[in-house]
């Protein structure tokens, strides 16, 4: 296991992939509070005679903007970065070259998940740290506990998105197809949640809804984390592990 873990870490570093997500999330972390701070000014200057009245930005608005950017573009970036995590290895023959050696396919999948999952979560956490610091600098002292809780909740959704992408990358031979299929839940989950309320509370997207409520929308006061969000968080973690198991099952008797 350690040999494959070391290989995954070295691959992240050598291919410069390690830069992509941290840079992206840090950009969101800086731009979120900056945008929240500048939005009233921008609207006022672009108003051309129209009177637009906005409440002054709250200290958590910067983080809310960061979360919004992550949810729209960050997840997409995670899918694009990892859609070929197994499918590309299968396509270019390195998976066959690896598995002719005495390597367990389960260990292979776990190593991929552990290293790249940790990288994804750490990248987001770094971005969140920037968002908190810049919120403090530009918007005032935010409710730190709420922001940390929102970060924790969102991490579980990010892990689920990563695990889902990894699973599809093991199931489907083409990285592009794996990426395309990985995008479907991003659109489907919020829509289904609108149709059936329990899914929006307890389902995978429950943590995102709860995190958004925690940090408040623009000018909306934040509220405490609810128990459905905790159920959603635990389910996301469990489903993530199950997706790794499914990836292994897909690879177990795969022909290379």
């Amino acid at each position, binding site marked *: 296991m350690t*040999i494959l873990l070391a290989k995954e870490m070295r691959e992240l570093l050598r291919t410069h992939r390690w830069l992509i997500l941290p840079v992206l999330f840090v950009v969101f972390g800086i731009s979120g509070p900056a945008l929240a701070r500048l939005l009233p000014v921008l609207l006022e200057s672009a108003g051309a005679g129209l009177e637009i009245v906005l409440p002054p930005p709250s200290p958590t608005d910067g983080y809310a903007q960061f979360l919004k950017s992550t949810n729209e573009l960050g997840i997409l970036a995670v899918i694009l970065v990892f859609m070929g995590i197994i499918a590309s290895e299968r396509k270019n023959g390195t998976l*066959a070259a690896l598995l002719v*050696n*005495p390597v367990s396919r389960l260990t292979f999948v776990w190593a991929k998940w552990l290293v790249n999952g940790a990288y994804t979560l750490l990248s987001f956490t770094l971005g969140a740290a920037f968002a908190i610091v810049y919120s403090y600098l530009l918007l005032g002292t935010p409710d730190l506990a709420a922001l940390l809780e929102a970060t924790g909740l969102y991490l579980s959704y990010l892990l689920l998105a990563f695990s889902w992408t990894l699973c599809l990358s093991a199931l489907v031979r083409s990285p592009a197809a794996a990426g395309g299929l990985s995008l479907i839940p991003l659109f489907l989950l919020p829509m289904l949640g609108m149709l059936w309320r329990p899914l929006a509370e307890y389902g995978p997207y429950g943590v995102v809804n709860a995190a958004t409520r925690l940090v408040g929308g623009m000018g909306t006061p934040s509220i405490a984390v609810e128990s459905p969000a905790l159920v959603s968080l635990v389910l996301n973690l469990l489903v993530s592990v199950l997706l790794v198991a499914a990836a292994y099952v897909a690879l*177990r008797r795969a022909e290379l």
Partner: protein
Amino acid sequence: MKAIETRALTRLFGSLCAVDNLTMAVPCGQVYGFLGPNGAGKTTTLKMLAGLISPSSGTALVAGKEMRPGESSRELRSRVGFLAEDPAFYPWMTAYEALVFTARLHGSSAARAGARAAELLDTVGLSPRAEDRIRGFSRGMRQRLGIALALAGEPDVLLLDEPASALDPIGRKEILDLISSLRGRATILMSSHVLDDVQRVGTWVGILDKGRMVVESPLDDLLHRYATPAFHLEISGDRTQVKSALLSRPWVQGVVEEAGGLRIIASDLQEAQRSIASLLAAEHVSLLEFATVVPTLEDVFLRIVSNNDNADDVRAEQITT
């Protein structure tokens, strides 16, 4: 015990039978040339032996144990080295790192893997490029590295899929010399459609055609058994026309274009000697050289595969009627 054995090994891809009831046995310590035209089923057989794909029926045995994809054959895979026709590598690794990584996957300690990597780089002549990333390697260097990786786990059995067929003459010579040098260290099953390569390094030969084993024998026995009078013919006219005329004669079994002329595989030596002059005269070409040649594996191969085609035609006719 045989190093490799297959028993009624069959692999279907939809309605296509890539390997058809293949039974073969590779004795320990031999360099076994696995011959066949493109699409004969060589790569599919090697992949089944390497545990990369499953047979539809039958068994693929390595050192007496069944090789299957998945977890069940992990221990067995430590005894087998495999080189794909177009070997794949992690391009971001250096040659040294790739070898250490593979040796460690086979259970070597870090120190032992490092020593093994240095030794193998030396064996395949890549020591000066040890610290270079693989992405910059030429096809010949990749092939040599592929063989080194296949040897990294100190396997008993080495499966090489067309190890030299895509290389230039210098690269081919290097690879074949390397395979020759491995004789006795491991049992080598080497697929190829380049018959000269197998004749140069092989000790045993199996000829596969349309997924079926047509003949399997020690190389020397095979050459002796299938020895057929053959001639080298050099002419000063249209070769294609003469080739067609030759193929229409009952005493000609096959004609191969080769450097400087044509090689004629004859079924009747005396008739060939009697008739060749008149045939060339009829085609209005001049004879420059006519010499008897010792049959090569290529002659034998053509004869066997052509007989197999004829046998298929007969079988097809029998079914139709």
